[in-house]
C-alpha cells in the first residue's frame, strides 16, 4: 500500500501588491505542517498562477491579497481554472478583505477567506479538513 500523497498547495501573490509577509508566514507554516508548498513569489498575473497550479499539479491555491484588488483577482483565477478544466483545484485566500466583500467572493467559488487574526493552526486545520490530495 502506497502512503497517501502529501497535500500540495500553491501560495500565490497576485497583482502588483508587494505585501508578502503573510504569504511567506503561511507558506512556511504549511510546510512545517507537512504540506508540500510551492510559493510563486510576487507580482503574478491570474494567468501565471493558474498555469503554475496546473503544472505543479496542486490540490489548492492560496491567494494573498492586501491591495484591494481581490474583487478582480479571485473571480479571474476561478474563471481561468474552469476554462482549463481544473476547477477541482480549491481556491482559498487571505489578506485584507472587507466583510461585505467576503460573501460575494464565496459566491463566486472561493472556498475560504482568512482575515487578520487567523492563526497558522486554524489555516492548517481548514486545509486538512477541506482539501484532499487529488488522486
Amino acid at each position: 500500500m502506497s502512503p497517501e500523497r502529501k497535500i500540495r498547495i500553491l501560495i500565490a501573490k497576485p497583482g502588483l501588491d508587494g505585501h508578502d509577509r503573510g504569504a511567506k508566514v503561511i507558506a512556511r507554516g504549511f510546510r512545517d505542517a507537512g504540506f508540500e508548498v510551492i510559493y510563486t513569489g510576487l507580482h503574478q498575473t491570474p494567468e501565471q498562477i493558474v498555469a503554475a497550479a496546473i503544472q505543479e499539479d496542486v490540490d489548492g491555491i492560496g491567494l494573498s491579497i492586501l491591495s484591494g484588488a481581490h474583487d478582480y483577482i479571485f473571480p479571474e483565477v476561478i474563471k481561468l481554472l474552469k476554462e482549463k478544466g481544473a476547477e477541482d483545484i480549491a481556491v482559498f485566500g487571505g489578506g485584507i478583505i472587507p466583510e461585505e466583500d467576503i460573501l460575494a467572493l464565496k459566491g463566486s467559488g472561493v472556498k475560504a477567506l482568512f482575515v487578520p487574526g487567523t492563526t497558522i493552526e486554524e489555516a492548517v486545520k481548514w486545509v486538512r479538513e477541506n482539501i484532499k490530495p487529488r488522486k
Partner: protein
Amino acid sequence: MFKEDQLKKVQQEKKKWVDDLSKMLSETPERLPRFTTVSDLEIKGLYSPEDIKDLNYSGEVGFPGVYPFTRGVQPSMYRGKLWTMRMFSGLGGPEETNQRFHYLLNHGETGLSVAFHYPTLMGYDSDSPNARGEVGKCGVAIDTLKDMEILFEGIPLDQVTTSMTINPPASILLAMYIVVAEKQGVSKKEIGGTIQNDMLKEFVAQKTFMLPPRPSIRIIVDTIEYCTKEVPRWNTISISGYHIREAGSTAVQELAFTLADGIAYVEAAMERGLDVDDFAPRLSFFFDSHIDFFEEIAKFRAARRIWAKVMRERFMAKKPRSWMLRFHTQTAGCSLTAQQPFNNVVRTAYEALAAVLGGTQSLHTNSLDETYAIPTEEAVTIALRTQQILAEETGVTNTIDPLAGSYFVEALTNQMEEMAWDYIHKIDEMGGMVKAIERGYPQMEIADAAYRYQRQIDANEKVIVGVNKYVTDHPPITIWRMRPEIGERQLKRLREVKETRKNPKVKECLGLIRRASLDGENLMPHIIHAVREYATIQEICDVWREVFGRYTDPGYF
C-alpha cells in the same frame, strides 16, 4: 559616568536588593518567565548606574546638534521648531487626493506626503493590463504630468515641502514635480521635499521593484548627482527601515539593514566621483515606530550615533551636516489590528510619543481604519489631532531628549548599537548590502523573525489586545471605497493626453532616455524633458525594462 566609590556603594546596595528580591520571588514569582520587547530582546527587571558605568557622556551622548547627535540633530529641537506633521495620503485620482491635501493643510498639517497607487509605484500606466483591478486603490493614480498638475493645484510649491513614496520611477516623479513647480513660477532651486528612491530596501522588504539592483542604483546615483547641483533643497533619498520592520524584522534588524543600505548608497555615489560632503547632507532616513516604547526610543538614538560614526570615521566626511541622521517616522501599520479598530488610536498615540521622544524630524500617524483601507476623512483627522495633542498639550516638547541619562534607555541604546554593528560588520564581510541581498541574507533574516513572531502570537506568548486576549465582537466600521468612475476618468484623461500631446517630440525624448541609459550620461535632464512633453511613466519605464532587464522575486520564504 560615575566615581569608583559611588559605584562600589551602588553594587553593595544592588546586592541587598537582589537578595531581598530573591526571597520575595520564592513566594510570589514574577508574572512571566521572560520579559521581552516586541522584537524578543530580553529586558532586565532593573537598570542602575552599573549598566552605564562605561558610558562616556561627551563622546557617546553629548549635546543636541553636536556629534554624535545621540540627543538630536538640532541644538534647540522642538523648542525651536516642531516636527513636520506629514500625513501619507493618496486615494483615487489626483482630484480626490488634491482635495485631501487641502483638507489636511487646512486642519494644521505642515507638510505633504504622497501615496501612489500600485501601477505608478511599479512603473505602469493606468491603462496597462498589469493595472487591472488596482487603479486608484492603494494610493493616487499618476500617469503623466497632467495628473501631477491636478494633484498640486492650489498648493504653492515654494511654501510647502512634499515627500513622495516612490522608488523605481522616483526620478520620473521628481522630474514631474520640478516641472509643476516651474509652471507655478517656482525654481527647482527653491523646492523642498523628499523622494524615497531607496531601491535596496525594495528588494529586501517593500517589494516594488522593477530593474535589477545594479541599474537601480545607477539611476539613484543619477538623481543624487543631479539634485546636488540643481535641486539643492531636495532630499535625494529616504533610506528606509519602515518597510523592513513592517515585513517582520526586529528593531535591531531594521536599524542595521537600513544603515547598511545607507552605506551602500554613499559608496555608490562616491564611486561616481561625488564629494561626500556635497551629497551626504541631503540623505535622509525613515523609520518605523513600533509598539515597544523604549526599544523604539533607543533605536532612534542609536541610529543617529551609528550614522554619525559611519560618516565621520568610515567615509571621512568633514561637514557636521553630513554626519547627521535626519529622519521621518511612521507609526507601525503592522501593529494595528482589524479587530476592535478603535484601539488603534491608542496604539498610534503611544508610537507617536516614542517617535517624538526619539527626536524625529517628521511624523505620519496611522489612522484607525488603515488595516482595512485608505483612511476616511474622519479617521485621518483623529490621527492628525493625535500629533497636535502630543505637540501642544502633553508638554513633551518642553525639553530636549528627556530620557537621556535613564539607566535603562542609555543601556538599551548601547545594546542596540552593538547588535546593529554586528549585523553591519557581517554585511561588510559579505561584500556589502548588494551582495548580501543577492544572497538573500536580509530577506531570510526578516522572514525568520516574522515567522517567529507569528508563532509567538499564535501561542499567546505575545499579547495583542483584541486578537489573542480580550477578544470581543465589534460592529463593522465604515471604510473608504474607491468609486469605479474614478478609474474610468483616469483612463479617459490618459487617452486624451496621449492624443493631444506632440507625439513625435515624445518619441524623440524617449530616444534620448534610451541613449543616456546605454551610455551612462545622467538621465535626469532627459527625464525632465520627456515629462514636460507628457511622456507617461510607463513609456519611460518600458525603455529601462528593455535596456536593463527586469528583476523578478526569488520568492524566499
